[in-house]
């Protein structure tokens, strides 16, 4: 079922921002959350040290249009595919996932082919992140 948000005023995009894994650096995630908020989105900020299970559960309960994962620990190749697998398993495989953090090119290629829709490194601009996130959440708009 696609969301027929055909009301007069477009409904805000709901996005989950979470940090899987054990690193404690959430400044990047907070900056992105703030930028998405300023772009009119409702950002569910799930915070640090989230397990893939918790992220998937939150995505379903919060009925998000989009998931952003921030990860700096180097454990991205274990954690991000696990989120994708669990989303599919729970019937939520259509929610687009993007990722940010320090992810080597080779890993980024593999994550993209596993289904991650966009990956942002340390040099990415907030404008770029916001516009990509908007397109991912509302492909038709």
């Amino acid at each position, binding site marked *: 079922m696609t969301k027929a948000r055909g009301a007069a005023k477009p409904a805000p995009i709901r996005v989950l921002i979470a940090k899987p894994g054990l690193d404690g650096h959430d400044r990047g995630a907070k900056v992105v959350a703030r930028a998405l908020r*300023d*772009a009119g989105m409702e950002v569910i900020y799930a915070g640090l040290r989230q397990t893939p299970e918790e992220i998937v559960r939150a995505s379903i309960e919060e009925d998000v249009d989009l998931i952003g994962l921030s990860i700096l620990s180097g454990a991205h190749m274990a954690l991000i595919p696990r989120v994708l697998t669990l989303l599919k398993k729970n*019937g939520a495989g259509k929610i687009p996932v993007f990722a940010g953090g320090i992810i080597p090119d080779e890993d980024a290629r593999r994550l993209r082919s596993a289904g991650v829709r966009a990956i942002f490194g340390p040099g990415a601009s907030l404008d770029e992140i916001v516009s990509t996130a908007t397109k991912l959440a509302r492909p038709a708009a």
Partner: protein
Amino acid sequence: MTARRRTSPVPASARAILRGDRRALARTISAIEDGEAEATPVLRALFPRTRQVPVIGFAGPLGVGKSSLINLLVRHLRAQGTTVAVIAVDPSSPFSGGSVLGDRIRFESRPGDQGVFFRSMASRGAAGGIAAATREAARLMDAAGFDLVLVETVGSGQVDVAIREIATTRVVVLVPHLGDEVQTLKAGLFEIADVFCVNKIDLPGSEHARRDLAELVALGPKGRGWTPRVAGTSTTVPTGVEALWHAIEAHEKYLDASGERAEGERHRLAAEIVGLVRDRVGRELTERLERDPTLRRLLDQVVARSIDPRTAADRLDGVARRST
């Protein structure tokens, strides 16, 4: 899909919610928030299936620890086998319309625990500490089978008392050193509490705060058979959560014993129905004032100061009544 959904007496998503389907519940809450027409038949089908479960509202200033307290309360209730749904409301930006919903950070649940459901909700411009969709979302959670619903309001100021329109028990959460005892005499937030909770009692000054509240409570108002309880809690060194729950439970029992539950429900439903009509009429009139040429001229006249707003309102009201 949409056509079948509209004609079916019980929409598929209503059946799914009754079965405990969490995605159906989550999506229907979004449909209510977004004002989608498809929410209406679901709400219609589920209303007779609601059991009027307790709705416990938590109000209080920013940063007093409402989220952490709710997290501990959920843990306590889950240990007893009680199933719980939570709605946590945070403000929307009046500028961008966006929101950062951060209450989930404090929330921990056992992996795979199906007995708890947590939903963050942006206020989307509603005043009073809750969102327009909060009441109906709580009702869906009731229909989905949760034993009770906890609602965390926007970190509120003195007049944010909308929670009284939906909650059966209102908990006002405070911390030590919020002000002198004159604060407790002021109208608004302090008047709606069925239970006061002084959180962060590990901080100095908590005895003072509890004493002030106890005095306030002793002063009245009279005329109600319930005297608000004062509980003390700490979430850093978890203390007092069980006693807080006992105070809430005592109030819920009082509602049944006194007959106030039925009375309160009737009062809240009356306000809800009137509110729904007011919203609808308001939307329609706003639209017509902008589109209908005659009504636009009416507005022009007010702008030009040739008639006053009250006179224009009488005319607009007349037009609205004729057309209905």
